[in-house]
């Protein structure tokens, strides 16, 4: 009798078990990420002097850590190649991108346009990341939260933010 091997993967519509492609396996990706970050850290730390064990230079600890991180990355990668556990659920790239844009735009506009315009952009962009976008709700929410932010941060904590920056 042929021995059945336990294969992890997604079951296709025809009922066949499909082996998860390596690049969709969470451990493969995690391993690659650790290897990548460890590699960059090691390469960058080559510029800092290593010193000796008795007199550790600024490069000592980072290089040791980078090597350890790469080792853990290798182990994770190898295990991922064997087990092929897929990433759970879908990737939420769209909400992630919108939130990043919302936060970054806020930082950019804070000095250039003032707190209120920055917050308006933040609310409209991040609300877009949700499942439902109801214009009227977003307007009310933005207005209420702008007032609250002004009350807490500007009046309450006394932070020196201009609500609006008049260009010119």
């Amino acid at each position, binding site marked *: 009798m042929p021995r059945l091997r336990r294969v992890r993967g997604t079951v296709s519509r025809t009922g066949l078990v499909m082996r998860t492609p390596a690049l969709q396996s*969470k451990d493969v990706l995690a391993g690659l990420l650790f290897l990548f970050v460890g590699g960059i850290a090691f390469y960058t730390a080559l510029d800092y002097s290593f010193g000796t064990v*008795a007199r550790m230079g*600024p490069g000592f600890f980072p290089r040791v850590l980078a090597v350890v*991180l790469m080792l*853990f990355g290798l182990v994770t990668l190898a295990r991922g190649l064997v087990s092929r556990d897929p990433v759970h659920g879908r990737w939420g790239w769209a909400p*992630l991108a919108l939130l990043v844009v919302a*936060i970054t735009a806020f930082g950019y506009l*804070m000095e250039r346009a003032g707190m209120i315009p920055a917050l308006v952009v933040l609310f409209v962009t991040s609300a877009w990341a*949700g499942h439902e976008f109801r214009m009227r709700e977003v307007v009310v*929410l933005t207005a209420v939260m702008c007032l609250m932010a002004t009350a807490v941060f500007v009046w309450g904590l006394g932070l020196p933010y201009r609500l609006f920056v008049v260009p010119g």
Partner: protein
Amino acid sequence: MLENLAMGFGVALSLTNLAYCLLGVTLGTLIGVLPGVGPLVTIAMLLPITFGLDPTAALIMLAGIYYGAQYGGSTTAILVNLPGETASVVTCIDGYQMARKGRAGPALAISAIGSFFAGCVGTLLIATFGPLLGEWALEFGAAEYFSLMLMGLVSAAVLAHGDMVKSLAMVVLGLLVGLVGADVNSGIDRFTFDVLELTDGIGFTVMAVGIFAVAEIVTNLEHRESREVFSREVGRLMPSREELVASIKPIIRGTGVGAFFGMLPGTGPSISAFSAYMLEKKIARDPDRFGRGAIEGVAAPEASNNAAAQTAFIPTLTLGIPGSATMALVLGALIIQGIQPGPQVMSSNPELFWGLIASMWIGNAMLVALNLPMVGLWVRLLTVPYRWLFPSIVMFCALGNYSLNNSPVDVYLCAGMGVLGYVLAKLECPPAPLILGYVLGPLMEENLRRALIISRGDPAVFVERPISLAFLVATALILAVMILPAMRRAKGEAGD
């Protein structure tokens, strides 16, 4: 000890500190009760608000936020079956069943009473053991500290939920992130990539908010929200006599279990709540009732996670070694306030240490006296749709980070950390070890360097000093205990 406690109460009962305690507890509950917002996100979000206060007030308020958020988390667990954090996962099991049977009120009350009792015991334990541990730790040299941190980090990684190798990798990643910025000893900028603002390192709130809050929001947005709220059925709060009597022993046992686990580095509330629940189930006369609304299944884990939440302050305050991600946030807040955590805190800042301990008790009392009667209001908050909540959380995160240095760079970095946090969450790499490593990174390097300077480069110093050796042996044991069963299982799989 009594003298010290009296002084602590003197500090904590001052009008301003009392007000900050109340504010923290209320804010913590308010935000913690919101669905999809756990204590970590709550603390990370509110952290910047406390930075303007003096250290004692800031810490008192943070502690208040912490209990408030935990309490709010149990409320969501019982009423919506939605654990705000891993510690209240267990409360969901029986708490939600009680709510479905119309006994949400008693479940909430027992959870508050159990937490209060555990809080009192926890406070006493801190007051007793904190100073002892602190005194002992005064004898620690650099080698002992290094080994202790190693033990703390390894046990935190090993005991975290999820894969051990990935958790350990996350610790190392966190240590590396912690090194970003100017090196104190050589003055060289490390990993700053010529960005001027990185010279001071990556800000603590930037990490906390990015890794926890932003990542969690995106994870929540992946799937549509669906929940069932028992908003009108909280009913009578007072538990019946039988329910009270049935809860007494579980509360005491839960407190014991929680107090023990809380003190160990890396365990914290979730493991304690789980162990307490399993213990109750094991010794119950009819274990079948568990999972169908057994009051013991609410009382024990709730007492346990609160006891652990309290005793977790012991290693954090006396040794400067946080046991959990939440404690790492508290520790980070201390460092930002200019206080170097460690055994010297008790002698150099006695009013801070004892004031905090006293305010812990006051905060717990406030939770029972003020928040329990207000449960109707909290329940109404549960119905706030997530689409209103998350943009507001984003606002607090962005504004909070901006307000630290009034610099947009912190805001950009926070967005970047959000991406990293989300990717790591998707790949099931636990974020808590990362934060712990990040907080301890610079300290660990400094102690390693110092130990090796003193020993003239002889690494044997770590095994020659008995206390350091004990920590290293404990680290090895923890690793062995976790690795051996995994290996045996792998062998078994290969054999059949």
